[in-house]
């Protein structure tokens, strides 16, 4: 499998006032195209920071990140926004839907950045909602949906522009077990049947079982399973 993500010597330092906090130290990581990878680790281990860097939401302090052959660490803010719009879908723990928009309108949001006509946008949003099993809830506002349904709407929003990569930050962290299973099942289908590469941060070992492989982070470094066991 060709590599989709290549991370080399990646580090990230945050400045909190006068203090410098090194959150990631010299990370090397490859993710194959079509892979489903889970990132696990205790709080403060740097998983979300790594996910943000992979998704182009933040810039590294050192090292490089290539996604689909594109050095995203070298892109300026506007170019990076454009890149995110076409290449990455985001799924958050708390869904982060627009409360004043219907499910259909929420799913359409990424398509507003394309040149598609209104009719085409509506059609694609309807297909995405159908894919996540919520075609009949298109006109509902987020407050009229359960947590699991909201997360599925957010997945529909993430895939509507057909990105190559899905980055998911604790996608089941706010859900009950059944809803979590549904959402993870949906991610598995997207990975297996639609070829989406998925990088998912999770605390939940059961969620991690849905991934092909799991990487552990501790204190900003990737650790081997053996080290973890020790």
């Amino acid at each position, binding site marked *: 499998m060709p590599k989709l993500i290549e991370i080399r010597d990646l580090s990230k330092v945050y400045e909190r006032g006068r203090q410098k906090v090194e959150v990631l130290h010299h990370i090397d990581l490859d993710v194959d195209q079509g892979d489903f990878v889970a990132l696990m680790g205790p709080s403060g281990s740097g998983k979300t920071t790594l996910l943000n860097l992979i998704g182009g939401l933040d810039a590294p302090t050192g090292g490089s990140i290539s996604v689909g052959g594109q050095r995203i660490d070298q892109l300026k803010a506007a170019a990076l926004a454009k890149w995110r719009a076409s290449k990455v879908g*985001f799924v958050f723990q708390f869904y982060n839907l627009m409360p004043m928009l219907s499910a259909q309108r929420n799913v359409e949001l990424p398509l507003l950045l394309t040149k598609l006509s209104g009719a085409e946008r509506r059609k694609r949003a309807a297909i995405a909602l159908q894919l996540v099993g919520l075609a009949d809830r298109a006109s509902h506002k987020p407050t009229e949906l359960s947590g699991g349904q909201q997360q599925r709407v957010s997945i529909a929003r993430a895939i509507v522009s057909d990105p190559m990569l899905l980055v998911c930050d604790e996608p089941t962290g706010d859900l009950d077990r059944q809803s979590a299973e549904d959402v993870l099942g949906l991610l598995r289908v997207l990975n297996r049947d639609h070829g989406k590469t998925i990088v998912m941060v999770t605390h939940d070992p059961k969620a991690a079982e849905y991934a092909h492989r799991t990487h552990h982070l501790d204190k900003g470094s990737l650790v081997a399973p053996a080290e973890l066991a020790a």
Partner: protein
Amino acid sequence: MKYLHLVWASLFRRKTRTLLTLVSIIAAFLLFGLLDAVRTSFAQAGQSANGAARLQTGSKLSFIQTLPLSLAQQIERVDGVKAVAYANWFGGAYQDPHNQVFSFAVAPNYLDLFPEIAVTEAERKAFAGTRTGALVGEKLAQRFGWKVGDRVPLQSNIFPDRSGSKNWHFDVVGILHATDKKTGGWFDQMFMLNWKYFDETTPYNQGAAGWFVTRVTDVNQADRVARAIDALSANSDHETRTQTEQAASAAWMKQIADIGLIVGSIMGAVFFTLLLLSGNTMMQAVRERTSEIAVLKTIGFSSRSVLAMVLAESVLLLVLGGLAGLGLATLLIPVVSAGSGGMLNLPAVGAGSWALGLALMGGIGIVVGALPAWNAMRLNIVDALAGR
């Protein structure tokens, strides 16, 4: 345009707050429409084409100072003068001192200089032939329910008759109509009385006029003629100031009150308050949407798009309220004018007022939205998503 639904939905995310802010904006622009109509009404006085061909000569010292009537013959002889008439302020009130009437004693030829005042030949003849006759503006007659043939008592707040009484009686012999309602609303409010009756009845006016009105043969020569008229009284005890009717009207209005300044001051205060109020609304609205704005940026909306959307939201808020307020003013002005029985004759909200209103809506919208839009543009996605 494809972002419009998003901007609209954001604007009405908190319906009650947005509606209350809209009510404030509507009130501000309603006031703007009404006050601007008052200002326009005053500014239009004397701005007709006929007004441009007329000069007004008054005392250089004060508009209450009179001038010798003999000046009329001297002015008539000035090169470029076509006709001269004179008048004086009567200062009448009807029934109650609050019912002030724009009443003037006018020379027999006064109406010759004002072709924009329509009055029938029969009425003019009746005016000339009736010592106590009066010509009354259309709106003024409507206001007090006067008609031709009525005997009308007026109390002058300046001039008594020879017995010392300030109560005068007049016979309405005709109705004055302004041919151009836009610039001649003033004439609809006039009450004209015969000079002879006035001059012979009061002991305080013999041989004096309040002002002279001169019609020039060539509008382009008006400045030269004005200087020549003023030269007639130079270094005398009755020096004059001759101005175009427009300038004289403006100066006269300013002696009563600087309407432009008053209107400007009120509107300045209103819009300043509006700026703070809607600015606060926008700041709150954007602050509580921090995570939503972060999500928009996450999925690829550029910082510029976010800036434009917040600015569009604040401009839309102002435009919605402003259009409703000015629209309401447009509907209310004829009602207010009609309801005042002719006392108020406000012009409709004109293209100029609409243009100024739209510019204010856009300008205030941009100013109000600038800071929240800037903050939204600079929002750090990672910090915002983490709730920092």
